[in-house]
């Protein structure tokens, strides 16, 4: 049930350093869509007294979803237009405890560090997964109908779940203008009943869907979903938080792990001749080099520059602080 058609989320506030990590991630890969999870909180709307009992996923209107950081996700299914995470893994990520991941899982796996614990420690407030984001390289920013369905599925679990899309590498040859867009959306069930008469095989391909996903489609007849727009604002955050920095440097690790997994799968086939093995080894080397020159190298450069800027800023702030202390002393 989607709460009677009432929108559960009024707006999304995305901290600027989390925005930075999303952009880093979106701009890292031009040929494929990338995705990640948004970590944050949904503070209760003001003026609403919470009674003693704990309400599970309250259907409040006027909630603001606050995103403090993101988790970059790997995709085991690296095809261009498929970005999915199964609901079981999503609910796993939502627990307050450490995020667990399965090495043997052929689907998406989550990184090892405990982002929740870290964030909770720093902010003193429990953080959880409040949404997901993915990129549309060279594609329009609007969610495809698959995206809208995926979002609807997540909303079954959590009404306040939001979806973000970053569209990049959009270029207008005539005006020589480049563009980056980002949007925020949720899904609602389409009102018109005439549009819902579609066989479920049209809406999702059987082969790529996990068992749970298929079960979901059997249990509830898949009616048409529409997207609704959610206002999103980037909230200034002048320094980059620890969790965001760690997420940012996680990306090259994730890319390397994906490459290693692909190589290991091939390498485990023992019947290959030495020429093929050399070829595969070279492919791995080449891909890793390409990752380093596109991601790791520029990442290192950016971090060093940021370090320099921060040192400079420290000096300026130090001077300003001394001046202010003098001023304060003079006033007393």
């Amino acid at each position, binding site marked *: 049930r989607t709460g009677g058609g009432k929108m559960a989320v009024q707006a999304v506030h995305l901290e600027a350093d989390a925005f*930075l990590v999303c*952009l880093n991630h979106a701009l890292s890969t031009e040929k494929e869509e990338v995705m990640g999870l948004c970590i944050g909180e949904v503070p209760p709307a003001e003026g609403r007294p919470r009674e003693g009992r704990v309400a599970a996923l309250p259907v409040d209107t006027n909630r603001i979803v606050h995103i403090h950081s993101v988790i970059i996700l790997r995709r085991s299914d690296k095809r261009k237009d498929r970005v999915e995470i199964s609901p079981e893994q999503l609910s796993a990520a939502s627990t307050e405890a450490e995020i667990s991941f399965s090495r043997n899982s052929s689907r998406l796996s989550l990184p090892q560090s405990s982002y929740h614990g870290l964030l909770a420690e720093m902010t003193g407030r429990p953080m959880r997964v409040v949404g997901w984001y993915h990129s549309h390289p060279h594609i329009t920013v609007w969610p495809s109908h698959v995206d809208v369905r995926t979002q609807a599925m997540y909303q079954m679990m959590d009404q306040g779940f939001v979806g973000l899309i970053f569209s990049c590498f959009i270029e207008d040859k005539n005006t020589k203008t*480049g563009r980056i867009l980002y949007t925020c959306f949720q899904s609602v069930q389409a009102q018109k009943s005439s549009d819902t008469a579609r066989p479920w095989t049209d809406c999702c391909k059987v082969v790529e869907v996990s068992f749970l996903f298929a079960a979901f489609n059997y249990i509830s007849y898949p009616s048409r979903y529409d997207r609704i727009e959610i206002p999103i604002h980037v909230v*200034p955050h002048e320094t980059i938080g620890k969790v965001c920095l760690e997420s940012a440097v996680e990306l090259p690790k994730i890319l390397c792990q994906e490459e290693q997994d692909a190589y290991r799968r091939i390498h485990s086939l023992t019947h290959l001749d030495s020429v093929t093995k050399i070829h595969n080894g070279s492919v791995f080397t080449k891909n890793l080099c390409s990752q380093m020159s596109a991601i790791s190298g520029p990442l290192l*450069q*950016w971090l060093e520059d940021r370090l320099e800027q921060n040192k400079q800023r420290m000096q300026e702030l130090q001077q300003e602080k001394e001046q202010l202390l003098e001023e304060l002393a003079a006033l007393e």
Partner: protein
Amino acid sequence: MAASISGYTFSSVCYCSANSSADHEGFLLGEVRQEETVSISDSQISNTEFLQVIEIHNHEPCSKLFSFYDYAGKVNEESLDRILKDRRKNVIGWYRFRRNTQQQMSYREHIIHKQLTHILGVPDLVFLLFSFISTANNSTHALEYVLFRPNRSTDFFDKDGVMKDIRAIYQVYNALQEKVQAVCIDVEKSERVVEAFQADVNKLKRQIAQKKNEKEQEIRMQQAILSRQMPADNVEPMFVPRMSYTGFAVEGCTLEDSDVSDPPPPYSDFNTSTHDSSGSPGLLESSSIFMPRPQAVGSSSYVSTSAGLKYSGNGASMPSSQRALPDNVDESEDSDYENLLEPTESSDSEYSQTRESRPSAHPDGDSRNTQTSQI
């Protein structure tokens, strides 16, 4: 030309921009290299392509606006050095982030850019413009980016320091005026021809009328002679022939037709109290009557809503607009020209007057005419 920027540098610029509530600017550091590609194919011996590649490695954000230039756009080299320090030699361009603005370089940005090319010694300095726009409900936002290399474009001022636009517009004005005068001469000639024809026609009409009169007179006289021989009871009313015009023609003045008609009815007074608006019931009832407003120099664009024939202040077709500005005209109709300097005693240019010292004896139209003739 091709340009590249790493995703991290780009995101970092977006991040700094998101953190600032106003515009944001900074410098682009990197390198420019020339790539020469020689391709050999079966159809061609060799084909060399030159490509200039601009690689942006990182950016140096400015903590606030106007940190190395002032409001007039004058760049201060000391401040520039303080910001850049030893990274100065790596500067290949600069960038600006603005919200809800056009994707064009502003004039101040042009001025700053030109000074930077000289001060930094980079003739091919680039300018990266980021514009940010959002949908009305703030659910979708777009960041557009364009790279400019404006050093090849023309300057506003020519070598004499005169604004090029003034020369161009004066040429247009001259050409137009010449055309006007040429057509005027043709019109004058055609007027004379028409006049001559009209005079001929009138003369002929008069001659004909005269002849007809003479003929009628003859007939009458004959009839009178005949009627004297035969007694008649009823006397026909004497037909008084009209006095014919003596046919004088004042040069340049067309005479009225010999047909004397009733004088045209006088214009009726337009006021709301009359009830002779039988043909247009709604016309005089509404309080806002829009009348076509002749557009003259200094006309405003709004229409008069007064019910009478009175025109409001800024004399559209009234001769009063040719005089000195009347007192009831407010300050906002003064010249738009700005002066950032103090007016001097010996200023010979009308344009450098501030509003307070504007002489009231010079009407707008005349001063402009004299000025353009002095250029």
